[in-house]
């Protein structure tokens, strides 16, 4: 009986292996993980192409139904998150902008305030914080909704009714989340910079609003606006596609929904981090 329980899947086992075997098994695990990750990326790319193809070719055939769904997603992923975005902008303004401005003023390098703010808030923290916010508040519910629908056979029922599940379930979410991340990033960056000056003012930093915003304007280039927009759109796409992909890509049972939710969050985070690294290279090249 005890042997039967220990042999059950999911039960922790301790194998008395020699040191060399552990190394081999670790390498085998790492290799397997890499191959699985590569396969997931390949399938995710295929899923993205299918979504793009469906949006381009079939949207017009059901635009009266899908159009309002897209607006609803923009409201869910964007408008509903405005209050929490304002709170995060204020927190970021206080924690980063306010303190950095005060510190730079103390050491007498006020001229670097604009560059520091643009590098920290506009290029890096603004888009990343927004992406995290949308992932947690919208991406996670998306995986749960789609995974549950898949597990309960609702997606199969859609297909049986001649309805394209990608057009009805994925396209509105992808467009809605992409627009939402773009818009919320802009609000977050502006909010953090304004709130940051407010907190610096409260600390009696001898810097006029005119000087502060002039330095910001001087530090910003057209590449910053272009790459900020591209970055926000890319983050939105990655989060939306990864969450929809994990929810719909394979037949699920209800007990697996929690597991794929975790996988989707990790995949989205990894995707955003990789994209962020690519954008840093782009900033350096431009």
């Amino acid at each position, binding site marked *: 009986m005890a042997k039967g329980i220990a042999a059950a899947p999911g039960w922790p086992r301790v194998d008395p292996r020699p040191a060399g075997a552990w190394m081999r098994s670790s390498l085998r695990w790492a290799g397997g993980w890499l191959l699985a990750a590569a396969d997931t990326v390949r399938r995710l790319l295929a899923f993205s192409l299918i979504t793009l193809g469906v949006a381009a070719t079939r949207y017009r*055939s*059901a635009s009266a*139904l899908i159009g309002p769904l897209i607006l609803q997603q923009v409201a869910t992923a964007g408008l509903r998150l405005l209050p929490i975005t304002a709170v995060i902008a204020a927190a970021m303004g206080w924690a980063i902008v306010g303190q950095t401005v005060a510190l730079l003023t103390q050491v007498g390098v006020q001229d670097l305030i604009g560059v520091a703010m643009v590098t920290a808030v506009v290029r890096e923290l603004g888009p990343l914080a927004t992406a995290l916010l949308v992932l947690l508040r919208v991406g996670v519910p998306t995986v749960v909704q789609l995974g549950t629908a898949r597990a309960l056979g*609702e997606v199969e*029922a859609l297909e*049986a*009714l*001649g*309805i394209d599940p990608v057009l009805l379930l994925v396209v509105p979410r992808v467009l809605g989340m992409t627009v939402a991340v773009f818009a919320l990033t802009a609000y977050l960056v502006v909010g953090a910079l304004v709130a940051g000056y407010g907190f610096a003012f409260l600390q009696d930093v001898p810097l006029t609003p005119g000087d502060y915003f002039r330095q910001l304007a001087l530090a910003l280039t057209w590449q910053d606006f272009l790459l900020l927009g591209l970055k926000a759109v890319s983050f939105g796409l990655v989060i939306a596609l990864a969450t929809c992909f994990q929810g719909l890509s394979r037949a699920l049972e209800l007990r697996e929904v929690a597991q794929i939710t975790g996988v989707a969050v990790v995949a989205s985070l990894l995707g955003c981090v990789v994209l962020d690294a690519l954008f840093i290279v782009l900033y350096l090249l431009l």
Partner: protein
Amino acid sequence: MRGRTHSRPKPPGRAASRRVRVWRRGRLFGHLTLAQNLALPLCYHRNCRPDAVEVEVDRLLAQFELQPLALRLPGQVNGACRQRAALARAMALVPEVLFLDDPLAELNTAQVHWWLNWLGAPPRPTDVRSRPATIVVATDDLRPWLADDRQYALLHDGRWQVLGNRDQLAASPASLRRELLAEPPAPR
């Protein structure tokens, strides 16, 4: 049909599936009300907004005796109503062939009567949708389905075996009859 002429309603759309399946327990969309569940395929295939099919959905709900539950979510009604709503949703598409997945399982006597009556009774002039010409029912228990105008087949080990009409079914081997009709073994 049975001495009367019935005009078939226009199919809901160019791409609508003409072979529609009704699953056991319905598989309705949990976040939509029963009325919205019925409106969804119509709006999709006709490319229109839900308010454009409101009247048709109301009449369908009335035909399937679901009007009082129109604004309820599937989770707020019992399984029999969910299954009937799934039937109404399938009928909204004017199918040529309707597949029913063991529709009488898990139903009480009154609901079984409703289904058998819907399948066997002649269409009424008030019906928004008349029954499709072909209805395929998958079931484990043939007894409620025995009628003269039906054909029977057996799906066993992935093979399809046509049994024929009721008389041919009665003439099939005793072991098969025992399995399909739960007939008691012959006395020794």
